[in-house]
């Protein structure tokens, strides 16, 4: 990825103003969608619905935020969805077996993290392109999950545990708090720690990063592990939100997460993007689906609309950045 022409569209991250501008455009887009929906459906602006959207966005965001770091290093993780499924199923069993949510949560996160780590090892030690490595991992994980679950469904978890996904605190759903917390952590990690800086540097030019004394392999491992752990977290939220899990819950999670990252303005060539952008990306996706439900538009239209949004978002992103240069 050392070839400028490939990434020529994007200016350096450190044009903070630049990034601010990009985020501003995205917020604007999100607000625009809100406005349209508010006009079309009177029930849209209700507090309940807003919280709804946020809560639904949170699941995508948890997966997408970890993915953002991977994409920042010019990598990709196609296994996040399958990872969520496996982690959820294992965490669920632990809770059933031990009756201890805490233990379940830990195993869920650990399982996700380990899978991520394995991805990292394939990418760094075995030097397999992340796209292919994680695609292979996707199949392996599915295989494991199918075998492990044998078509059963895990369900019925302690009320305390279910609070995480469905409970409220001061009138706000708990997932929304979690979303804000991890949005904060993610942003701090990417922008305000030296690891974050090193990750951006690796994404911008891996060779130069290595010759600048950055432990590239270790950072990549970290990034994939984090992505995996976030998938683990998502699995916990999922588990407690739906009070159950089966082997196929991952199928529908990966592409939306990737879409959210892209709509959020993170460049696939690495080195450019923000976690906050990803949050807005997830928000925009959710808003659209929410709107379609409220207006009872046939679900057949959802993929079409999502596709158009992804392209539009990236296109506008390029346009605005180009003008800025």
């Amino acid at each position, binding site marked *: 990825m050392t070839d400028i022409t490939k990434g020529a569209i994007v200016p350096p991250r*450190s044009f903070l103003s630049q990034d601010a501008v990009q985020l501003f455009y995205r917020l604007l887009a999100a607000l625009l969608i809100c406005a349209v929906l508010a006009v079309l459906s009177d029930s849209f602006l209700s507090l309940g619905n807003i919280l709804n959207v946020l809560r639904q966005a949170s699941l995508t965001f948890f997966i997408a935020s970890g993915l953002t770091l991977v994409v920042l290093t010019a990598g990709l993780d196609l296994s996040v969805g399958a990872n969520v499924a496996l982690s959820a199923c294992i965490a669920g069993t632990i809770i059933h077996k031990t009756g201890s949510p805490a233990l379940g949560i830990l195993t869920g996160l650990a399982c996700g993290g380990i899978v991520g780590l394995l991805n990292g090892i394939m990418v760094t030690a075995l030097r397999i392109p992340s796209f292919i490595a994680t695609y292979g991992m996707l199949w392996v994980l599915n295989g494991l999950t199918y075998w492990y679950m044998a078509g059963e469904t895990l369900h019925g978890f302690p009320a305390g545990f279910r609070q995480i996904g469905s409970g409220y605190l001061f009138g706000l759903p708990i997932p929304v708090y979690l979303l804000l917390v991890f949005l904060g952590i993610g942003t701090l990690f990417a922008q305000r720690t030296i690891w974050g800086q090193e990750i951006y540097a690796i994404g911008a030019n891996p060779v130069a990063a290595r010759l600048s004394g950055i432990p590239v392999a270790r950072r990549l491992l970290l990034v994939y592990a984090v992505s995996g752990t976030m998938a683990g977290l998502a699995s916990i939220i999922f588990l407690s939100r739906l009070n159950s899990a089966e082997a196929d819950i991952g199928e529908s999670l990966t592409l939306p997460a990737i879409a959210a990252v892209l709509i959020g303005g993170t460049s696939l060539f690495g080195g450019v993007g923000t976690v906050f952008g990803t949050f807005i990306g997830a928000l925009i996706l959710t808003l659209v689906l929410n709107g379609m439900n409220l207006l009872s538009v046939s679900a057949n239209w959802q993929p079409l609309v999502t596709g158009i949004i992804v392209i539009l978002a990236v296109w506008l992103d390029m346009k605005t950045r180009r003008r800025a240069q």
Partner: protein
Amino acid sequence: MSDGLPIEVTLPTPLLELRGISKEFPGVKALDDVSFAIYPGEVHMLLGENGAGKSSLMKVLCGAYRADAGEFYHKGERVAISSTADAQKLGIAVIFQEFSLVPYLDIAQNIFLGREPKGRIPGTIDRHRILADARRVLDTIGFDIDPSTTVDKLGVAQQQMVEIAKAISQNARILVMDEPTAALSDRETELLFALIARLKADGVAIVYISHRMAEVFALGDRITVLRDGRRIDGVRPADVTPDQLVRMMVGRNVDMTYPRNFADKPGEVLLEVKGLTAPTGIFDINIEVRRGEIVGLCGLVGSGRSEVARAIFGADPVTSGEIIFDGKTISGEPDLAARRGIALIPESRKSEGLALLRSVSDNLVVSALKKLFPSGLFDQRSAQRTADGLIRQLRIATPSARQTVGLLSGGNQQKVVIGKWLAAGSKLFIFDEPTRGIDIGAKSEIFALIDRLVADGAAALMISSEQIEICHVCDRAYVMREGRIAGHLTRSELTEENIVRLGMHHA
């Protein structure tokens, strides 16, 4: 002789004449009313610091850029160059430093890219003819290689030959070469010069861009100097001294002897390499570098100099041998070496030294993050402050620390690469061709900088293909041949002759 007229009237009609060529980009005037003429069978040296407009001029010549103003005259009649096709019709061919070759096509396909001989079936290529034609072209430039070899297996020099063959095959009458010898070993350079002589004889005009004074005087028939997009003067080598040329280029006096206050007694040993052997093709390397020293590492291109540097820095694996730095043996990845205080300024800035899309400040602090922010918490503002300090200290010409580093000139980019190691507080600086593609003004600045570094107790190991530089600035030098240390030269023995003698292959 403020302009070169008196010379030009004595010559036949120029092959190509530029009159008042101007090219503007948002913010910069890349070319400002440039006029000069190119005559058949001459080597026309194009001199100028980076950013003086040489590359823009090349792009205009080959039709990649379209001039905003100005006229072209081909053999006296007015022509337009608005596309690469136009340029080709006029027989202009440019050989850039980044080659325009396709790695997984063979030599023949590369030479005739876009001009493949048609086969019987429409759309297909006549394989026999393309190979035959390629062989013919390669013969004319005396390059003996199977045209069906894929380019990704060729060395830099060979690729350059293919580039030239490509130009010849378009029966180019005007050949523009951008620092053709930059990546060539001495032997390869001789081959190239021989080829250039042959081309001259055939009446081909060669526009030759170089930063190496030696070449300018050895090859040049006439010299055009550019500065800040303007043509400063046109002269004959016989009529000028190197210093005069430099003054024209830089616009001020620059001492070309890179004076150094040599340390009378070198400090204690900082780096000691014992019997280093690596799969990259270096054997039993023994090197010692002391504080306050600049130690040269010379030899032909491909003799293993860069490989030694990379092995010491941990960038390449090592099979055997010991690297003792500051009393402790080190082995492992670059991050370890960097933490211990070793710095590598790699051969190719763009692909190995910098994140071109990121800002000057980002690039300056990247190696020093742990040192600057021990807490692990990064702060953009204090990073900026550090960067600003380095920018002032190194006199890096940039509008701000937020400027994209890819937009800086070569010299300033090189300063950024060095700067990031200053920030990291490195003790040993390994320079791999630190002046490659850098103009003379910047060169002496770089050397002054290195001098200051070692004066402050650091040490430097410097790889360079330009023996003059080694002789001027190094306390001692190791000469490599075929992956081994062929000899060691003390300050007094340090002459170009000795370097060449030790570096030569004894066939």
